[in-house]
């Protein structure tokens, strides 16, 4: 039966075993829980669903989450591009250490990141004191949420832009310079143009991650309803109130958003790889 799915024969044995175990795992671990949530939401009726989604507190949490995630993505696009550029283009002492440290946000548990960032940006913290002199409130505000989100998703842009930049040899720029382009012009017209797809992919991944970020955010956000409450937290609050219907309805919104983003990013990526391979 399973063998009928194959479009080309390979001499290697083990297709049925590896295929059926993989599919079984994906069904049990990924698809079953997702469909459980979908069924739960489908069972609650449109009016109830809409009532939960359009509640002012829910709308406020959507707004805070999306705006902070967008801000974090912009920060990451800029800082990530800078780091990727410096790491691939220049040779200087400390480069390898910098390259290794970029992955810290992926390796560091989000609760640790949240706890530390909250202390760092508290009004008397190492960095927070400077912000409070400048009159900017970081802890207990959306700025703090944005900083936490940009910390946890920083590696995405660097790691998607880096390989493209490595393939982009300096002779393209040199050609541009020979033809009379200034360094600034060659950066924006030659390099940035070729980097844009990777930059968009990385930023999109960072945005997706930021939408769902929870651990790092709740420590620094202050979690005031209507003001600094992110969607994931509101889901958790509704759960603690045993209000499964509201929690599921809210969760379905971020779930749909992140799945749409994921599939969008993947289709961009596959189109890109096809172009690179010259297909």
């Amino acid at each position, binding site marked *: 039966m399973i063998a009928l799915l194959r479009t080309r024969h390979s001499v*290697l044995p083990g297709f049925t075993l590896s295929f059926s175990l993989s599919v079984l795992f994906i069904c049990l671990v990924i698809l079953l829980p997702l469909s459980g949530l979908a069924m739960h939401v489908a069972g609650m009726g449109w009016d109830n669903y809409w009532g939960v989604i359009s509640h002012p507190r829910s709308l406020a949490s959507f707004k805070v989450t999306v705006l902070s995630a967008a801000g974090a993505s912009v920060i990451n696009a800029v800082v990530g591009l800078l780091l990727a550029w410096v790491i691939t283009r220049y040779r200087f002492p400390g480069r390898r250490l910098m390259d290794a440290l970029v992955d810290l946000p992926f*390796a560091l548990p989000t609760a640790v990141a949240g706890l530390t960032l909250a202390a760092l940006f508290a009004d008397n913290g190492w960095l927070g004191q400077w912000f409070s002199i400048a009159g900017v409130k970081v802890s207990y505000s959306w700025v703090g949420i944005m900083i936490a989100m940009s910390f946890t998703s*920083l590696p995405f842009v660097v790691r998607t832009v880096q390989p493209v930049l490595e393939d982009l040899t300096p002779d393209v720029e040199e050609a541009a310079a020979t033809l009379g382009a200034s360094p600034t012009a060659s950066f924006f017209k030659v390099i940035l143009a070729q980097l844009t797809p990777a930059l968009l992919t990385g930023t999109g991944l960072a945005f997706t991650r930021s939408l769902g970020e929870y651990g790092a955010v709740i420590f620094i956000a202050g979690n005031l309803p209507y003001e600094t409450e992110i969607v994931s937290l509101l889901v958790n609050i509704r759960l603690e109130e045993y209000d499964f219907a509201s929690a599921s309805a809210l969760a379905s919104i971020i779930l749909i958003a992140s799945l749409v983003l994921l599939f969008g990013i993947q289709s961009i990526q596959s189109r890109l790889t096809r172009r690179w391979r010259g297909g």
Partner: protein
Amino acid sequence: MPRYWHQWALIAAAFAAVILMLVLPLALILHQAFAQGVAPVLEALSSSDMGHAIRLTLVVAAITVPVNLLFGILLAWCVTHYEFRGRKLLTTLIDIPFAMSPVVAGLCYLVVYGSQSLLGQWLSDWNVQLMFALPGMVMVTIFVSCPYVARVLIPLMQSQGQDEEEAAVLMGASGWQVFWYVTLPKIRWALLYGVVLTNARAVGEFGAVSVVSGLIRGETLTLPLLIQMLHEDYNTVGAFTAAGLLAAMALITLLLKTVLEWRQRV
């Protein structure tokens, strides 16, 4: 070495970003943990809650990593060595845990296996409790960390091709022999790298585990959850001591990652 001032300016800006965003937080953890000297840290480390949280975290990781290792190998093997309908769908589905909010992941498991669902009811009739206990915590951790091994292996296996495997089969090797003697030596460093990433995520998972753990003190608190508890108790030294343990794990992860990536390339 860069020649122009603007290149040095860019390098300086990159260093500033790395120090402000990455190094300073690490330094702060040590500073906060040892703010009152070494004795409170040792006391925090020897508390029974901390000991329990460390053991529980290790147990969760010790179950999660082998399961995801096996699944990652099978899936990567399947999608890189055969051509079949639905191959792209499989590689898309495997990314879902990366895109999902961990809280939503926890909620999905709670909805399916919790006591208010049919399945949960049936399980509790048989005296099986999955949610708010170790099994549930392991299940969501498996969910959130399952893509890593496959994601590391798939590009590598694709670029390595399968000529050696096919040659081995034609010379009469069994499937198991092919994997053990031909494929495994080619992918071992990447495999270890996948394990390191899976382990880091399993140890550090917060959102998904917090939903299904029930946060029972001394029973279902892993290290990241304990951090939140201690933070809410205003136990700064305790919270930063636990954070220091996890940060040490993160730094070891980075070190291993760098070494393993280099080994795989050689």
